[in-house]
């Protein structure tokens, strides 16, 4: 429906851009973004920075993972994505649940793609073990399993590893707002509790 007027608009906008820039050299030297010096305490830094957002971090080993996650879930109803590769008693495996169905579930357990130490961020690429975007959004509590080996130093390291063709969700602490008198309140629309389970051995 916009093909005819859109075609006109497209050519006109691009034409305006070209004439605005006529005589302007497109060559600009872009200085490389600086990288901080490498450090060997990435996992500690990651933990400290995630906790700074008032998220809960529990460190564990591969052997204890199932127990730790079960405790983090507690008596809540829980949904998991396909491919989580962890047995959680009573968990519903997402097979295309509706938003309304997910709204009736308390908790979601997933893995992550990358952890960023400097900023205390976990990134989901919604592949196997992470699931559709909606399942980590509607339930009120998100238990996210991060492998210590997945933790990188800073944003540029994460950008290099991540695949832009996939949808990505970068999560830094629980949902928050500071819209009323700049008072930080955790939890508006996303999960109000973020529990990161950090696996190392």
């Amino acid at each position, binding site marked *: 429906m916009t093909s005819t007027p859109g075609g006109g*608009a497209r050519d006109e906008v691009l034409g305006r851009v070209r004439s605005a820039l006529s005589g302007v050299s497109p060559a*600009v030297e872009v200085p490389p*973004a600086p990288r901080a010096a490498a450090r060997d305490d990435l996992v500690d830094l990651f933990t400290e920075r995630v906790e700074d957002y008032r998220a809960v971090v529990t460190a564990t080993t591969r052997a204890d993972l199932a127990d730790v996650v079960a405790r983090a879930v507690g008596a809540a109803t829980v949904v998991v994505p396909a491919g989580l590769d962890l047995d959680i008693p009573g968990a519903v495996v997402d097979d295309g649940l509706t938003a309304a169905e997910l709204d009736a579930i308390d908790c979601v357990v997933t893995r992550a793609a990358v952890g960023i130490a400097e900023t205390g961020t976990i990134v989901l690429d919604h592949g196997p073990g992470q699931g559709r975007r*909606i399942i980590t959004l509607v339930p009120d509590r998100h238990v996210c399993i991060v492998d210590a080996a997945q933790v990188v130093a800073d944003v540029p390291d994460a950008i290099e590893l991540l695949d832009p063709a996939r*949808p*990505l969700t970068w999560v830094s602490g629980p949902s928050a707002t500071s*819209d009323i008198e700049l008072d930080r309140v955790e939890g508006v*629309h996303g999960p109000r509790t973020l529990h990161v389970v950090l696996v190392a051995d």
Partner: protein
Amino acid sequence: MSGTFVGMPAFPTAARAALGDTQLRRNLAHATHTIRDKRARVVAEVEDWEELRLAGAGVKEAALRDLATHLETLEAALTRAGATVHWARDAEEACAIVAAIAKRHGADEVVKVKSMATQEIGLNEALEAVGIAAWETDLAELIVQLGEDLPSHILVPAIHRNRAEVREIFRRRMGAVGRPAPDDLTDEPAVLAGAAREHLREKFLRAKVGVSGANFAVADTGTLVVVESEGNGRMCLTLPEVLVSVVGIEKVVATWSDLDPMLRLLPRSSTGERMNPYTSTWSGVTPGDGPQEVHVVLLDNGRTRALADDVGRQALRCIRCSACLNVCPVYERVGGHAYGSVYPGPIGAILNPLLRGVSDEQTASLPYASSLCGACFEVCPVRIDIPSVLVDQRAAVVDAHRGDRIPRRGSHWQEAVAMRAAAWTFSDARRLGWAERASGLAGRVLGRFSRTTLPGGRAAAGRLPGPGAAWTGARDLPAPPPESFREWWDRTDGGRS
């Protein structure tokens, strides 16, 4: 409409009204100081912040200088990824595209993520005119929308409202448009946020069409990026069947790796956090996950006008972090509404004239809404030299109005020149002192300081001496603070110490 608040008076007049509003000034001062301090702390953590700024400025400048190429690359990548790309020359065209998509799906409502571009084009009003309700889902935007108010800050649009006012707005207005506020609503921010969660959740769960902007658009991968805090963005980007994103053509960066300096610069400059709670990126349609029909509207609406301006082009690097607002001594005193645009503060003072030209009185007064103190440039993550562009735009105002009849009293540029002098004088207590002495008014002016009191009990300068006298002829101004902004800046190293 092209982004001016309809019927807004020129800056000096609007500023005068704002200066008299004590509650507004108190809320603003609290807010700008709080964010300023947070920003300074997290920026100080980054050892190579200045290099990061240079990289960020470079990424954006390079994208702008070869914009046509990048836009075509973006269009091709989006199309490959299953998105439909539309082009809009102006606000009206962009609104019509969004309305047509919503209509095609039989939607009588859309859920919206906070987006400067959709505010600029007046999308909510345009949709309302064709019977489609546009629900703002960002908490501050919700406060503004329910209060039938105007946003006053890029980042925290309800910065001018305190908790008691927010409670009143929720109690009075929520019920009319959906789930009412609970009876026991208090003015605790957590309780108010909880009420917003309940109110909006039913809208998210049933919405067919979501509308967003984008903070960045990556040309080579066709990826859009939305940076947010509350999760309302994720809701709008994930739950609806159809997603329409209105993206200014200046949002383009060339490559995926260009996101690096930007995603480090934006949260620290904006909310003063190492990283904002949620950043979503998506490239077209992901089968089985999220909206299965994805539209992107590439918007000009004056951007090519700004692009053609050799000095002003850099304003298009702006990533809307709002750091320049929070350090601006003029913004802190008058607030966002006085600028009469969705883009207030120092960036608004240059962006509005660049996008729209300076033929109307309101826009022509904006380049004078500054003391040229330079704090905005110092904090800008993409190094926009706002003071230089301001000066250049002042010249543009003078040029554009050279043919006007010789100044009548009250004509905008006469007033604007007086405003400039007032701002210049006011920005520096020492300068004010010189002006007083030079004009031999010191005694009288100081006498007035002690006699005149503004509604909040704050002493007022009844009249500016020297070149500012014309401006204060019929106005009250707050007395200069004991420590001027510049002195504060020097003493605290821009709030870092």
